[in-house]
């Protein structure tokens, strides 16, 4: 069953990680994608996609090349659409990139490409660079986030010596330290073994932030609020997991 954009089914929570004191525009909270099309060269990867994301746990599934990763990159302005408009809590990604990036964190598929400093604590602190915080406040935030994800004993460890699961947690900690309202995950469990995939899944499910997860890992998203199924640059199903995933599985057979 295909569902149109839905309203505010679930209130957004602001838990331990808190929210950022960014002056918000008087617009409806949520991420709105309006009539978005995008192409890479001759290939049209998104075709007139319109959807509003307001739930706390949203999954995006689809075959390889269906446009889901491109869609995810639109959400924090890593990519600006050729046609159409993407707004985050009223901020247009095309002309308010700073405000959008404060609100939307992005966790990449391969944490090795996201960790940019040699050691764990230094990498986590990178997100705070340029924010007007004292050295003590910065150190406090780093320690708090390391402790939250059980990384405190690894604080001085070289990042390349961590396990896959620890790297993914570090990548997430590096994003959450900036206290975004939304976190977009691009296939967060693809490179992980079963145990680490479950651990990352648990972390995602307990996040205070809104989580938007692009994935092929269907058990991860069974308890999500909403699933979008992409095919050839279009959303072909948009529903609760039980219904959307059956449609996805049927089409993939």
């Amino acid at each position, binding site marked *: 069953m295909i569902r149109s954009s839905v309203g505010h089914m679930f209130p957004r929570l602001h838990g331990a990680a808190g929210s950022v004191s960014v002056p918000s525009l008087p617009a409806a909270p949520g991420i709105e994608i309006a009539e978005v099309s995008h192409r*890479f*060269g001759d290939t049209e990867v998104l075709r007139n996609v319109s959807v509003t994301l307001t739930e706390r746990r949203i999954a995006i599934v689809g075959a390889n090349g269906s446009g889901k990763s491109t869609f995810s*990159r639109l959400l*924090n*302005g*890593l*990519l*600006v*659409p*050729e046609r159409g408009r993407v707004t985050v809590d009223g901020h247009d990604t*095309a*002309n*308010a*990139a*700073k*405000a959008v*990036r*404060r609100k939307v*964190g*992005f966790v*990449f598929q*391969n944490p*090795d*490409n*996201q*960790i*940019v*400093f*040699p*050691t764990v*604590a*230094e*990498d986590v*602190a*990178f*997100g705070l*660079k*340029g*924010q007007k915080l004292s050295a003590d406040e910065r150190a406090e935030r780093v320690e708090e986030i390391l402790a939250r994800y059980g990384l405190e004993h690894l604080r*001085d460890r*070289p*990042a*390349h010596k961590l396990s896959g699961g620890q790297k993914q947690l570090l990548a997430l900690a*590096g*994003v959450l330290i*900036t206290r975004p309202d939304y976190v977009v995950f691009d296939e967060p469990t693809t490179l992980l073994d079963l145990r680490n995939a479950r651990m990352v899944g648990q972390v995602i499910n307990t996040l205070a932030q809104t989580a938007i997860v692009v994935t092929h890992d269907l058990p991860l998203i069974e308890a999500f609020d909403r699933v979008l199924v992409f095919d050839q640059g279009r959303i072909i199903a948009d529903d609760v997991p039980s219904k959307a995933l059956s449609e996805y599985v049927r089409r993939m057979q």
Partner: protein
Amino acid sequence: MSRSILHRLPAGLKLTALAAAGSAVIWVSDWRVMVDLLLLVALAFPVARLGRGALVQQLRPLLPMLVVLFLAQGLMASWTEAALVIARIATLVLMAGLVTLTTRTEDLIATVERLLTPLAPLGVNPGKVSLAFSLALRFLPVIAEEAERVHEAQSARGLGNSPLALALPLIVRVLKSAEDIADAIEARSGHDDPDCPQEKPQRRARFNPLAALKTVKE
């Protein structure tokens, strides 16, 4: 790791001392003085609470080169000259190791950034240079691991001895990773970057390393 007095010294002071001492050892011409200096620097390792392993780790990769250099200098010049050159190189390496092992990368980078700040009016962006410095430190071991993986894969196909079979896939992977890393830096720090677009939209295409290589070939 417990913090010694060397750990607590400011990074700027350590870098300045390293630069000064590194220049000074060039003027030492007596091999016995040079060996004494080498022993002195080696003794600084336990003072910095760094084990013997850390000291050996600094010198081990250089050992074959030091042996060759010692023999070449000894045979072509004199054995005292050979001892002087080897002791000087080892002293320089150990001093540099001592500074990097007792200073957090974050502090080193902040110092580099501070030192470069006066060059900002000339168009140098201290933030970007220090970030490049940090990226080099972070990704050297990652690229080494990637090279090992490519080598294993090519060995399994019987191409273990072909430099081209190692270099090409490695270059493609590194270029692809570079694009992802640039995206990640943008996503993590774009909100503080003065170059981050505020009014001008960006509509860039994803980088395709294979297409780029094809272009280079053409």
